[in-house]
């Protein structure tokens, strides 16, 4: 009755509208009856029905209709409480209307805040309220802002006491929007802070099988966004953080520190001023006392953020400088620890100083100016103390300030100190820091380094070689430094060469290798200027080629000493020097180097080499007798080469006939590299016919060429790989052919990789596998018994190199073959099959469980293999089997436990360890 008398008009209007989209008479009748019923529950059902209808069709309403509906609903809010839930649902649907009449948002919210006590509603209705707010905030921002602080107050009241994580996420989202969109907080700033910060730090463990998937981390991030959103909260948040840092709960500390780090990025120094001391005391206490690395690093990050916030502050003429006040605090508490005889707090203090240093140039300037002179002096006066950690500290802090590019006062004393550190420090961490530090300094002060450091290193280079060599590499970034440092390195190589004749080969091969590595590192890091390009292409590379050629020729006659320059390790170290300079420095010059090198090898053109005293007819690619010293030089061609047809045939000749390993492998790699890069690969291949397979060509040449084509998806690769497949049936060569697949699938370190500009497509292995796995299975089935191992070996070579995800998906199809491979007598096949199987066993496919009996018996047989690796790998697999579903493995339990008794007494401890673990698990898993 009440309903009819007061709302006749709107209702009549409603009926007419609803008629249009509700054709069912039944619904309408039901509607009329229920909305006017005197029973609140019946009325609630009526409103519910209306709300549901609106949820479907809110988009079709006109402005006038929305107005009427809102008036209706607002009025219903005053009705019996059972009607509230459906009313809220209806209002929520209406908030999504695009035609919301002006002012209706405000009136809706006013009646909502006035008539509804949100926290006494059920969970879903509360969510409904939050969603209404979110919808309105999206579309009616200006109107809501017109409500002024009342809106914030209304919201604070509605969310006060919210417990449900889903609703909290919504409420935090609203709070975040209020803050970020600049709603007027008025006098309710503290209330808004209180109502959200009471959840800080978040402590929430989602229930098991939580269907909503809300994590603690979600809540933490959302809440953090609210709390750190505005500097207006600073005066409340910072005391809260200081308080929570005292907490015993690690996660609370961590959350507080992370929140601090985030919030200070928004704050200004005046927000922080009064809490600085408290924050510093808490941070210092944590760093000095904590045992947790996470807390420590969070502390350091917070300190850095704090300092950088203060560094941003703009000073006025009379205000005090917050930054220097704060840094004074830091220095006061940390500096004295650096020089105390008790070394306990040296590291934490250094870390604190470093953290504040790294915040800004100003901060690092203040700190280094205060700390550095002391440390340098201390270091210089106490070097005889062996366990002096101040040197570590200097390196540590020094590195930071230098990376910050603020250390301007690079003087002779510091140079001396760094030099000594470079040459004498034993601690690896410090070594690394000092080398890095020297590198950064050299970029800033090339002149000092050229005049002081490099001559210093040069005089020391024959006493502490390794250190000097790596230090030289580290400091050579600036072109002008490189001009000075590379001659020193080259001199090392030349001395090696000349020392040979005096009979005292002082330099070990490793050191020559190190010199080459240093050159390589310089080539990798130096700025690419014309100057450095010339240095490498016109001085260093010709010198390297000249020296090795000389060594190769001279060794010919004298049989006494063997120069390090003909050692494989040295040559292999030179290759990257050449290839890095060719790929990084000055393309035109690189081109020139490549063509010179090519003509050196092809035509014996030695005109560009320094100290030219070479015979005129050098033929490096023609093998004469056992002159491997010359033929192996072909490996240097891997660094730079020009494609010429006659070169290709020479290389092919060499790789198929030469018997010296380094020579034929290098030649094959060069050839493969050329084929891979050459655009007319097809043309080239027509010229070249595969020779009648010699041993060498099968072992290395053919797979290498096949790989060159395979990695660029060249169709001709199939011809070559098919040839390799067919060789698996060959009595003599089958096993070698199977090994060829390993080469085909593995990563290439020198030529066929992207760093060397080879054309390598992604996922060529998967492609090869999916195209050829069927061939392998067929071949295996058709092969006579004695050839089958070759197929298994090829299979395990291929599968082993596939990425694990692919293995796991592909293996079920190959399972029977792999089981076969387990009983193959070849230890290598067994081992690689086991290593393929182990990851699959962690998540066994159904096919595997069906074959469990065969698997168990084969694995148990392998536990008595003569090879230790196979025994270990098989025991690991057996271990993994124990985690299969109990009902599957229970039948094998007695058998396995019995069989595992024997490896418990294995002669190798490593095998016994695996057996103990596996047996323990088999007992354990089935009680």
């Amino acid at each position, binding site marked *: 009755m009440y309903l009819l008398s007061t709302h006749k008009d709107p209702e009549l209007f409603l009926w007419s509208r609803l008629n249009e989209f509700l054709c069912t008479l039944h619904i309408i009748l039901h509607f009329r009856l229920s909305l006017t019923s005197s029973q609140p529950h019946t009325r609630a059902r009526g409103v519910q029905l209306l709300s549901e209808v609106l949820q479907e069709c809110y988009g079709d309403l006109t402005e006038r209709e929305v107005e009427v509906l809102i008036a209706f609903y607002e009025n219903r809010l005053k009705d019996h409480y059972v009607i509230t839930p459906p009313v809220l649902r209806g209002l929520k649907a209406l908030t999504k209307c695009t035609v919301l009449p002006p002012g209706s948002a405000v009136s809706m919210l006013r009646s909502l805040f006035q008539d509804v006590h949100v926290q006494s509603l059920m969970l879903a209705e509360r969510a409904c309220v939050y969603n209404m707010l979110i919808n309105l905030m999206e579309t009616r921002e200006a109107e809501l802002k017109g409500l002024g602080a009342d809106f914030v107050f209304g919201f604070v009241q509605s969310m006060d006491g919210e417990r449900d994580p889903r609703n909290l996420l919504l409420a935090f989202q609203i709070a975040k929007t209020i803050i970020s969109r600049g709603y007027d907080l008025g006098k309710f700033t503290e209330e808004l802070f209180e109502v959200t910060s009471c959840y800080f730090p978040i402590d929430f463990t989602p229930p098991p099988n939580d269907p909503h998937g809300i994590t603690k981390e979600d809540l933490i991030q959302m809440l953090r966004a609210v709390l750190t959103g505005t500097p207006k909260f600073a005066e409340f948040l910072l005391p809260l953080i200081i308080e929570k840092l005292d907490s015993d709960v690690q996660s609370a500390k961590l959350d507080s520190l992370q929140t601090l780090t985030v919030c200070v990025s928004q704050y200004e120094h005046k927000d922080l001023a009064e809490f600085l001391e408290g924050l510093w005391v808490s941070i210092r206490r944590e760093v000095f006392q904590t045992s947790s690395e996470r807390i420590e690093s969070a502390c350091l990050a917070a300190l850095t953020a704090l300092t950088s916030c203060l560094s941003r502050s703009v000073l006025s003429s009379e205000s005090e400088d917050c930054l220097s006040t704060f840094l004074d605090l830091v220095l006061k508490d940390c500096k004295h620890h650096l020089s105390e005889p008790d070394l306990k707090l040296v590291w934490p203090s250094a870390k604190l100083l470093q953290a504040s240093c790294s915040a800004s140039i100003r901060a690092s300037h203040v700190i280094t100016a205060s700390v550095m002179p002391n440390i340098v002096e201390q270091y210089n006066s106490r070097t005889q103390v062996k366990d002096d950690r101040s040197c570590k500290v200097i390196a540590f802090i020094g590195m930071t300030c230098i990376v910050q590019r603020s250390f301007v006062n690079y003087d002779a004393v510091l140079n001396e100190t760094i030099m000594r550190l470079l040459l004498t420090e034993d601690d690896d961490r410090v070594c690394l820091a000092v080398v890095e530090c020297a590198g950064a300094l050299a970029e800033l002060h090339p002149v000092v380094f050229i005049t002081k450091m490099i001559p210093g290193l040069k005089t020391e280079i024959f006493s502490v070689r390794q250190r000097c060599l790596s230090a030289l590499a580290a400091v050579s970034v600036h072109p002008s430094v490189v001009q000075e440092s590379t001659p020193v390195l080259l001199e090392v190589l030349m001395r090696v060469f000349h020392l040979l004749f005096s009979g005292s080969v002082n330099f070990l091969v490793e050191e020559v290798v190190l010199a080459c590595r240093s050159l390589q590192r310089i080539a990798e890091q130096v700025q690419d200027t014309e100057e450095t390009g010339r240095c490498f292409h016109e001085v260093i590379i010709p010198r390297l080629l000249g020296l090795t050629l000389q060594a190769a020729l001279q060794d010919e006659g004298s049989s006494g000493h063997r120069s390090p320059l003909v050692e494989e390790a040295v040559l292999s170290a030179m290759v990257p020097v050449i290839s890095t300079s060719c790929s990084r420095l000055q393309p035109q010059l690189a081109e020139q180097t490549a063509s010179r090198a090519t003509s050196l090898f092809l035509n014996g053109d030695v005109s560009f080499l320094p100290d030219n005293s070479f015979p005129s007819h050098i033929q490096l690619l023609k093998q004469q007798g056992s002159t491997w010293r010359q033929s192996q030089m072909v490996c240097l061609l891997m660094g730079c080469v020009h494609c010429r047809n006659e070169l290709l045939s020479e290389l092919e000749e060499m790789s198929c006939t030469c018997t010296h390993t380094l020579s034929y492998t290098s030649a094959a790699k060069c050839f493969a590299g050329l084929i891979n890069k050459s655009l007319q690969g097809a043309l080239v291949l027509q010229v070249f016919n595969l020779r009648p397979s010699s041993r060498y060509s099968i072992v290395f040449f053919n797979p290498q060429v096949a790989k060159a084509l395979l990695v660029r998806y060249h169709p001709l690769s199939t011809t070559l790989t098919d040839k390799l497949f067919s060789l698996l049936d060959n009595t003599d060569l089958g096993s070698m052919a199977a090994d060829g697949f390993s080469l085909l699938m593995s990563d290439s370190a020198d030529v066929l990789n992207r760093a060397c500009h080879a054309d390598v497509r992604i996922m060529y292995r998967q492609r090869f596998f999916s195209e050829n796995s069927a061939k392998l299975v067929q071949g295996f089935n058709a092969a006579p018994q004695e050839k089958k191992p070759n197929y298994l070996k090829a299979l395990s070579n291929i599968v082993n190199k596939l990425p694990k995800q692919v293995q796991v998906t592909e293996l079920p199809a190959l399972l029977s073959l792999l089981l076969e491979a387990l009983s193959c007598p070849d230890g290598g096949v067994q081992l690689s099959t086991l290593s393929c199987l182990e990851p699959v066993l962690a998540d066994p496919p159904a096919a595997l469980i069906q074959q469990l009996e065969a698997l168990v018996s084969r694995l148990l047989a392998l536990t008595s293999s003569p090879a*230790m690796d196979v025994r270990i790998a098989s025991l690991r697999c057996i271990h993994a089997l124990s985690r299969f579903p109990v009902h599957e493995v229970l039948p094998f339990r007695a058998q396995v436990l019995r069989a595992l*008794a024997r490896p418990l*007494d294995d002669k*190798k401890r490593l095998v016994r*360890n695996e057996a103990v*673990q596996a047996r323990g698990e088999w007992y*354990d898993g089935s009680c």
Partner: protein
Amino acid sequence: LVGGGAMSGGTRLENANPVIFQRSGERQLTASEEDDDVHDPIDDREIFDILSINDPEHPLSLEELNVVEQVRVKVDDAGSTVGVEFTPTIPHCSMATLIGLSIKVKLLRSLPDRFKIDVHITPGTHASEDAVNKQLADKERVAAALENSSLLEVVNQCLSTRSV
């Protein structure tokens, strides 16, 4: 053998706050251990590593509680004997028998059959030392105890390396 008290010990721990000792760290791998041809004898450390099992009362290993120390483990590979002395955390520890039994079971499972295994309490560290030692030395009682499936479950729980 072991009273029901061992398992239904209730929620209160007998020694809720034990002294924790540092673990001795992983055994260093030597070159000879990787050599396929060298015979590595079973040594004290190896037995000790096998025994890094969980205490029934604490989520800590026996090593961390100093219940088992390497110096109290003696093995003679050639003579096929192993002797382990263990030290209960407190002299009245009602779990002493259970700990001893767990150690014994672990060794039975982890060592070849040829070994004779002797597990007993470090002299002078437990109130009813002799009684516990006698129980542990009695083959039949050990076997009978392991027939008891609920007891076996507790033992397995102690020995389990799986994280729960």
